[in-house]
């Protein structure tokens, strides 16, 4: 049986999370097909055909799929999914939105946010905010799965030469419509795919003070994140939140500034390769997971670090 991976894309390029999902799918084993559903998504489909290990790309190009509305896309994926042993998507907000509908339409369970593949029917996934790891066996004929991107390496973007096949099926449920979006514009890398992340917490004091983190981030080619405390205090928008209820990141280097280290924040970043914590409170729990701890006033230490890099 073959595996269907749902590509995350913006019609012109593939999103990085797709490549992590492809790696997870390849660990399950079997022929890999990628579905690119969108509107005017030919360029994304071409990129998908280059991904190493993919043998076929299915392209559903229609206005009904323009904004990945779950009501429409789930019907398409469920229809196609009947012919596969596994239907896999990245655990992004799009994947989380669409895949449970797919599972329900197929009358099967969904395994959310898997972090390891043990066999073609057994997977690991974090529960209780990452405080426990469950090993779960699927008893269903079709396994519907979302993949935590940080747990799998990205597949090579090139080297593949998949065939491209158009899918004619159009599912327009007609019960939902896209109204608009506000996408944060930034020249910095995306939080979930950045090699370096600089995050600020309540210790930053206010939103303006994040400027010193942004300056440091620009020098390191880093993304800027925040703790839930900083988001709740209104310093920065929620899409910057790193943690169980925000984004899960695992960069090469994570620099936590003025973050105390609540369990829910640690759940979002503790798989980072190297963790640096800067906090003036030497009892802060963040120091228990940091590789390098600096007890210092962040308003002195961060500019100094910036200057010395």
């Amino acid at each position, binding site marked *: 049986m073959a595996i269907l991976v749902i590509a995350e894309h913006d019609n012109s390029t593939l999103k990085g999370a797709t490549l992590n999902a492809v790696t997870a799918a390849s660990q399950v084993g079997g022929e890999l097909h990628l579905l690119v559903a969108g509107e005017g998504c030919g360029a994304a489909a071409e990129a998908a055909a280059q991904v190493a290990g993919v043998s076929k790309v299915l392209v559903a190009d229609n206005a009904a799929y323009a904004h990945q509305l779950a009501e429409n896309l789930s019907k398409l994926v469920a229809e196609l999914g009947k012919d596969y042993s596994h239907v896999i998507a990245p655990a992004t907000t799009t994947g*989380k939105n669409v895949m449970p509908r797919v599972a329900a339409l197929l009358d099967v369970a969904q395994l959310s946010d898997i972090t390891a593949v043990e066999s073609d029917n057994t997977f690991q996934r974090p529960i209780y905010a990452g405080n426990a*790891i469950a090993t779960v066996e699927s008893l269903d004929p079709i396994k519907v799965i979302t993949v935590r991107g940080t747990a799998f390496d990205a597949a090579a973007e090139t080297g593949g030469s998949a065939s491209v096949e158009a899918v004619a099926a159009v599912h327009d449920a007609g019960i939902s419509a896209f109204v608009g979006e506000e996408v944060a514009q930034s020249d910095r890398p995306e939080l979930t795919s950045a090699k370096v992340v600089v995050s600020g917490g309540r210790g930053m004091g206010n939103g303006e003070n994040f400027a010193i983190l942004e300056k440091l981030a620009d020098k390191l080619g880093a993304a800027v994140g925040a703790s839930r405390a900083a988001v709740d205090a209104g310093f920065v928008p929620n899409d910057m939140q790193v943690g169980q209820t925000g984004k899960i990141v695992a960069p090469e280097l994570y620099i936590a500034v003025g973050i105390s280290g609540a369990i829910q924040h640690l759940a979002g970043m503790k798989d980072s390769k190297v963790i640096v914590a800067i906090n003036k409170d030497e009892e802060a729990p963040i120091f228990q997971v940091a590789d390098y701890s600096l007890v210092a006033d962040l308003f002195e230490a961060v500019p100094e670090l910036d200057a010395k890099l």
Partner: protein
Amino acid sequence: MKALVAVKRVIDYNVKVRVKSDNTDVDLANVKMALNPFCEIAVEEAVRLKEAGTVSEVVVVSIGPKACQEQIRTALALGADRGIQIETDEMPESLGVAKLLAKVVEEEKPELVILGKQSIDSDNNQTGQMLGALLDMPQGTFASEVKVEGDKVNVTREVDGGLQTVALNLPAIVTTDLRLNEPRYASLPNIMKAKKKPLDVKTPADLGVELKAHTRLLKVAPPAERQAGIRVSSVDELVDKLKNEAKVI
């Protein structure tokens, strides 16, 4: 219009979770339980819609053993009008929960169904979407703003990289994210009043739903522990370690 809110009894947000020594599950014996935080936001949103005159009745439903009546009473104290408990000793999987809720929706015919986006125990983030598929209803997941306008509801959603707004035909499903609202505290008089509000008990059999296992939990283990590293005494030492020891910059 009527709003139906589904709530779940889970381990209290502040309790440190421990895995049982035989690795069969987490240890919930004698642990403080509470209303799932995202469900609390769902109740608050429904109550605010009622206070604004948009919603006329808020019905809250929970699935679980008798103890979950405690969380239904909490929701009633926050302002919901009546409760429904679906009694089961085994906690059903998300698909089973969605099938039970679908039957309740067919009976109650709410215009809005509001759920938390996920429960903080299983972290599945599935039930609202599955319910939507079973009922062929539209969904606004991870909501940070909900506005009912005529026969539609506009939902602003927290998505990767920003916000997205969708317009959904009613009846519709909303799942809540953290920024939707800040739930109130129940006042003592309201806690007393909640004890007298109606609470129906049904079983899955009453609803004609047969629960089925789609997965088997083989093992629950603690995550790999991360060891604390070293204290550096200055920014110079930090830069040196990052360059020469960790080699990450």
